[in-house]
C-alpha cells in the first residue's frame, strides 16, 4: 500500500537483484559478438518475465537487473521463472530479494532495502533465489517454500541477516506422467509437447492451451486459437493440435527437427518438434525473414542492426549459442530469405539484388541484379524463384550461374512463394489469389481465388497450406486446386511452415 511520509517519499517495496553467473568466462569463451547477442537474449527474457509478473525494471548494471515488485511472492515467482527460462539458453543467474521501505523517486529506488537486497545477492549460489527473513515472513502463497541458509553479516551493513533459499512450485499446466501408455505415437508426443512448452512458457510467458483431459487420457477437448500465437495442425486429420501463445509472431520456417518463429519484439523462438521445447533467442535487430536449413535458422536482419552499417544474416543453430553473423553487401532493405539448392538466398527490395550465401563457408559469395523490387524468394525444383512486387513477375534463376532461365507474369502484387508438386505457388495478399506456375516451363497454370488475403504459403505432404491475413489457414489440393479453410483464427494468419506431418502457423492480433 502506498503511503507518504515527510519530505522523502518512501514505500514498502520488494527489491530483486539478478546477476549472470560467470559472465566474464562466458564473454571470454563466446567473443564479443556472441556474448552481446546472448546478453540481449538474457535481457529480453528477464524483461518478458518482469512484464508477466508485474515487476518494474529500475536499472541494468552490466549483466544484472535491479527490479522492484509490489508483492514479495511475485518477486520470487518471477525469479524462478527467469532462472528456468535462462536455463534453456544455458545461462545461470543468482537472485537476491529483500523487502522493506525504500525511497522511490521517479523511476529510481534507493535506501537500505536496496543495499540489503544487493548483499543478499552476493551470498546467493548459482541458480539460487536467496531471500531475507523479512521476505519469508511477508510472503503469502502456498506455492513457495523456503530452506534455511543461515545467518550472515553483510559487508557495510549493521546487524545479522537470516537468509533463506526460496523455491517456487508452479501449479501444473500438464502432467506428463498421466499420459496413457496406449496412446499412439502422435498422442504420446503431445504430453511431451505440453510439458516442454510449459517450460517454454516459463521462458517466454507462454501458456499451452492443451487440455489436461487429453493429457490424462480423456477425450481431446476443443482447442481455442488465440491472437498472438503459433498453432499446429495435424496434416493427416486437419485437426488443430496445439496453440502456443507467443508475442507478436511474424515469420516462420521449419525443417524436420525445428520450427523457428520470429517475433516483432526481436526474438527468434526455436520449437523442438520432437520435444516441443521452446527456446528464445534475442536478435540484434528487427528481423525481416527466416529460413530453415542445414540444421539451423537463417534469420534475415534487413531493417538495420545496431553497430552495423548494413544488414546481416544471423545463422542460429539448434544450440542457441551456435550463432554466426554473415554480413551482406546490400544488407539494408533485404526483404526475404530462402534455403535450398545449395545456398541460403536473400533478396533485397531496395537494391533489387539476389545474394547467395554458401552454406559451408557461410559467406555471401554471389550477388546478382534481379527485377524491380523482389519481395519473395524460394528454392526448389532445381531453381531459385524470385517474385517481384512492382514488376509483377516471377523469375526462375539457375542456382549455379544466377542467370535468369524463365519468367512468368503475375497479375497481382506477390507476397510469398512455395515450391511443391512440380509447381510454384505464389500468393498475393492484396489480389486475394494464389497463382500456380509450372516449375519446368514457367507456364502459368491457374489462378486460385482465395478471398482471405493469402500471405504465407508452404508445401505439405499432400497439400499446399496458406496463411491468410483475414484469419484463416487453408489447404489447397494440388490436383483439383480447390482451396478449403481448415482453421479460422481470431487474427491475421501471417506465416505457415511444414515439418513432417505438422503444419505450423502464426496468428497475430
Amino acid at each position: 500500500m502506498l503511503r507518504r511520509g515527510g519530505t522523502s517519499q518512501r514505500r514498502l517495496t520488494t527489491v530483486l537483484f539478478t546477476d549472470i553467473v560467470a559472465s566474464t568466462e562466458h564473454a571470454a569463451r563466446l567473443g564479443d559478438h556472441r556474448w552481446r547477442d546472448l546478453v540481449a537474449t538474457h535481457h529480453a527474457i528477464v524483461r518478458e518475465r518482469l512484464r508477466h509478473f508485474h515487476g518494474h525494471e529500475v536499472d541494468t548494471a552490466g549483466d544484472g537487473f535491479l527490479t522492484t515488485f509490489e508483492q514479495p511472492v511475485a518477486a520470487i515467482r518471477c525469479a524462478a521463472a527467469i532462472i528456468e527460462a535462462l536455463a534453456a539458453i544455458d545461462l545461470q543467474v543468482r537472485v537476491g530479494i529483500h523487502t522493506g521501505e525504500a525511497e522511490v523517486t521517479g523511476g529510481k529506488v534507493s535506501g537500505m532495502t536496496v543495499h540489503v537486497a544487493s548483499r543478499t545477492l552476493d551470498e546467493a549460489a548459482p541458480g539460487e533465489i536467496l531471500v531475507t527473513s523479512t521476505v519469508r515472513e511477508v510472503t503469502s502463497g502456498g506455492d513457495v517454500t523456503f530452506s534455511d541458509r543461515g545467518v550472515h553479516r553483510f559487508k557495510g551493513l549493521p546487524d545479522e541477516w537470516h537468509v533463506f533459499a526460496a523455491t517456487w512450485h508452479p501449479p501444473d499446466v500438464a502432467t506428463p506422467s498421466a499420459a496413457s501408455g496406449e496412446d499412439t505415437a502422435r498422442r504420446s508426443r503431445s504430453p511431451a509437447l505440453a510439458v516442454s512448452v510449459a517450460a517454454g512458457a516459463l521462458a517466454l510467458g507462454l501458456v499451452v492451451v492443451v487440455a489436461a483431459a487429453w493429457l490424462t487420457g480423456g477425450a481431446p477437448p476443443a482447442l481455442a486459437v488465440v491472437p498472438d500465437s503459433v498453432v499446429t495442425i495435424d496434416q493427416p486429420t486437419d485437426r488443430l493440435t496445439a496453440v502456443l501463445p507467443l508475442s507478436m509472431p511474424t515469420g516462420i520456417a521449419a525443417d524436420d527437427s525445428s520450427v523457428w518463429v520470429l517475433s516483432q519484439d526481436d526474438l527468434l523462438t526455436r520449437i523442438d518438434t520432437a520435444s516441443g521445447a521452446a527456446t528464445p533467442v534475442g536478435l540484434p535487430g528487427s528481423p525481416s525473414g527466416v529460413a530453415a536449413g542445414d540444421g539451423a535458422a537463417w534469420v534475415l536482419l534487413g531493417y538495420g542492426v545496431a553497430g552495423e552499417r548494413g544488414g546481416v544474416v544471423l545463422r542460429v543453430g539448434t544450440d542457441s549459442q551456435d550463432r554466426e553473423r554473415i554480413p551482406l553487401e546490400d544488407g539494408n532493405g533485404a526483404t526475404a530469405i530462402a534455403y535450398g539448392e545449395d545456398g541460403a538466398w536473400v533478396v533485397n527490395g531496395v537494391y533489387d539484388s539476389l545474394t547467395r550465401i554458401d552454406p559451408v563457408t557461410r559467406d555471401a559469395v554471389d550477388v546478382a541484379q534481379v527485377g524491380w523490387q523482389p519481395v519473395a524468394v524460394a528454392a526448389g525444383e532445381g531453381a531459385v524463384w524470385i517474385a517481384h512486387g512492382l514488376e509483377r513477375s516471377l523469375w526462375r534463376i539457375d542456382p549455379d550461374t544466377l542467370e535468369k532461365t524463365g519468367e512468368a507474369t503475375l497479375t497481382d502484387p506477390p507476397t510469398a512463394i512455395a515450391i511443391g508438386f512440380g509447381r510454384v505457388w505464389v500468393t498475393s495478399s492484396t489480389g486475394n489469389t494464389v497463382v500456380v506456375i509450372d516449375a519446368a516451363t514457367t507456364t502459368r497454370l491457374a489462378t486460385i481465388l482465395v478471398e482471405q488475403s493469402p500471405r504465407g504459403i508452404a508445401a505439405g505432404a499432400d497439400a499446399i497450406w496458406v496463411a491468410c491475413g483475414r484469419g484463416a489457414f487453408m489447404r489447397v489440393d494440388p490436383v483439383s486446386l480447390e482451396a478449403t479453410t481448415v482453421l479460422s483464427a481470431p487474427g491475421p494468419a501471417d506465416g505457415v511452415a511444414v515439418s513432417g506431418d505438422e503444419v505450423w502457423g502464426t496468428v497475430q492480433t
Partner: protein
Amino acid sequence: MKTNDRWSAARRGAGLRVLVMVIGLLAALPGPLDAAAEPPEASSPASGGTLRVVVPREAQEPFGGFDERADAFLDSQLDTSRTTHGLTRCCLGRTLYSYNGRRTAEGGSHLQPDLAAGPPDVSPDGLTWTIAIKPGLHYGPPLQDVEITAGDFVRSFERFFAPTLRDVVFTFELMDIEGAAAYQAGTAATISGLETPDDHTLVVHLSAPQGDFAERLATLVTVPIPPDPEHPEARFGIAEEADSGYGRFAVSSGPYMLDGSASLDLSRPVSERAAHAGIAPGRVTLVRNPSWDPATDPLRPAYADRIEITVVDTMDDAVAAIDTGTADLLWNPRTPPTIPAEVYEAFRADPARGAARIDRVAVVRAIVMNLAVPPFDDIHVRKALNWVLDKQRLVDLQGGRSAAQPVGHIVPDALVDDLLIDYDPYATPGQRGDLAAARAEMARSRYDSDGDGLCDATVCQHVRMVTREPFEEAARSAAEDFAKLGIDLDIEVHDINAFFFEDTADPRLKVPIVAGIAWHGLNLGASGVLMIFDGVSSVTTEPDLAANVTMMGATPQELGGWGYDVVDVPNVDARVGDCVPRMGADQLRCWASLDQYLMERVVPWVPYSQDRNAALTSPRVIAYGYDELTSTTSLDQIALWE
C-alpha cells in the same frame, strides 16, 4: 485569439493543413534515456487524488500549443494540436479505434478497438469496412441517458467534411471514403459511403483500398457527436452551427468530463450556450465522467479522480510549482524544447526535486533537396551531404538531448513500430559526420571532375537554401558542413507563410534546398508520411498541400512546364501504391522497406533529428505514462501518492 482568427492568420486557409502536417506537433515515442516508467496495474491501489498540472503560458506558440482560450480548444474534429489530441485521447473522447496511451515498447503502437467492439470486418476487395459498435455505452452528463450509436460517428464524419470547414481541416487521409469529396464540395447532401444498418453497426465504403484505414479511424475525427435531444433533426447534433467553439461544450465519452458538464443547457442556441465551467481562462478542470465504465475501456486506467490544469505566466513559475509541491506535472504540449535544457539537467541531477522525463516525439526533421535542381540531381551529391552533416550539432542547437536526438531515416520510429530503430545508413561516429566518406561519395559525382571530393562545378556555387525561423542557425550549421564538399549555400530566411505556401509549395520557384521541414503522420501509420511522395501533387488536387519539395514523382511534362531543365527525377508512386492496400504487419513492413529505399536509392533528404518531449513530475507521481499516438503525457496514466 479566436479559432477563426487563428486559422485566418495563415495567408490561405488550406495552409494550416500543411502546417499541421509538416510542422507536426503530435506524436511521440519511448524515451531511451528516461527513467523507467512504472506501469501500474489496472487494480493498482494508486487510484484517486487530484492530479495538478501546470502549463507555462510563455512557452506556447502560435500553432499547436496549449491555449484554453482558443475557439478550437478541445474540438475533436477541428483541432489536431497536441493539447487537444492529448486531452481528448486520455480523458474526454473515445474513438472507434485507439491505442493504450503508452510507449511503443509497452504496446503503444498497437491499434486496439475503443468504441468499436472488435477489429473491422473487411471485404475481400478491401473496399467495405464493417465496424461493430460496443453496445450499452452512454455519453457523460447531461446526456447520460443517450447511448453512443453508429449514427453518431456519421455525424462526426459529416461535420469533419463539412463544406464550411474545408479550409481548416486536413482530410486527405480519409478522402477515400466514398462520397466524401462530393459532400465536402457541397454537391452531395450526405456522405454516400457511410451506412448504419443498425444502431451498432457502421459500414464504410471506400473508393480505393486503404489497408490501414482502421488506424485512420483512431484520429479524433471519430470522437462521436451526440444528437441534440432538443433538435433531433440537427445534422451535426449538439455541434450544430458550431464551426468553432464546440469543444467548450462537448459532451464526454471518455473517463473524464469537463467540470460543470452536467449543467450544460442544450436547449439554448449555440451562440448563447455557456461553456462548461471546467474551462476558464488559465484553468481547465476535469472530473470523473459517471457514465464511463472501466470494464468497457481497457485503454485508460484513469487513476486520478480529478485533473486540474493551471496556466501560469512563465516557465520559472511552472518549475517553481513543481519544486514547491503545488503541481505534479509540468506539461508543455508544444514543439521542443518543452522545458529548458538547464532545467531538465538540474532535475536529472537532483532526483529529490522530482523526475525529468524525456520521450521520443514522432517528428523527424530533415534538410530536403530538390532533385530537379543541379547539383542535387546527382545521387552521389545527395549521399555526400548525408555523410558530412554534423547531426549532433543540430541536435545541440535544437536544445540538446531533452529536445531531440539524431536520426537516420525519415519515418518516425513509432510509425513503423520500431522496425527501423537500428537503421541508419549514414551513421557516423558520434553523429558528427564523416568527411572522408562524404568526399569519397562526392568524388563519384559528375560535379566533381577531378575526383578530389569537392564539387567543382559552377552549380555548386551560390546555391539557394531557403529556411525559416527558428531554423536559421541550423541552416548555417549545415551550410558550414556542406562547404567542406565545395557546395556553397546562400541562405535565405523567409517568413513562415512564404516558406510553406510559396517556397515549398510552388514547384515553379525551383528552390534547390530547404531547411525547416519536419515530417510526421496524423496517426500511428506511416502512410501519412510516405503517401505524400506519391507524385508532387497527386495526394490532393491542391499542389500546395503536397509539400513535396523534392519533386519526386513529377512527370517530365510537369517539370518542363514548371521550367526545369532536369526532367527526369525518381518516382516512387508504384512503391507507394504497393504499400497502401496492404494490411497490418504486411503494410508496416512495406513502409519500412520504402523508407529504406528512399534513404538509399533516392536520398532526397538528410534527416537529422527526431524531436523529444520533456516533462517534469513531482515526487508525488508514482506512475507515469507517455502516449505514442499524441506525443504527450497520458494524463490518465499518472498515479499519485495517496
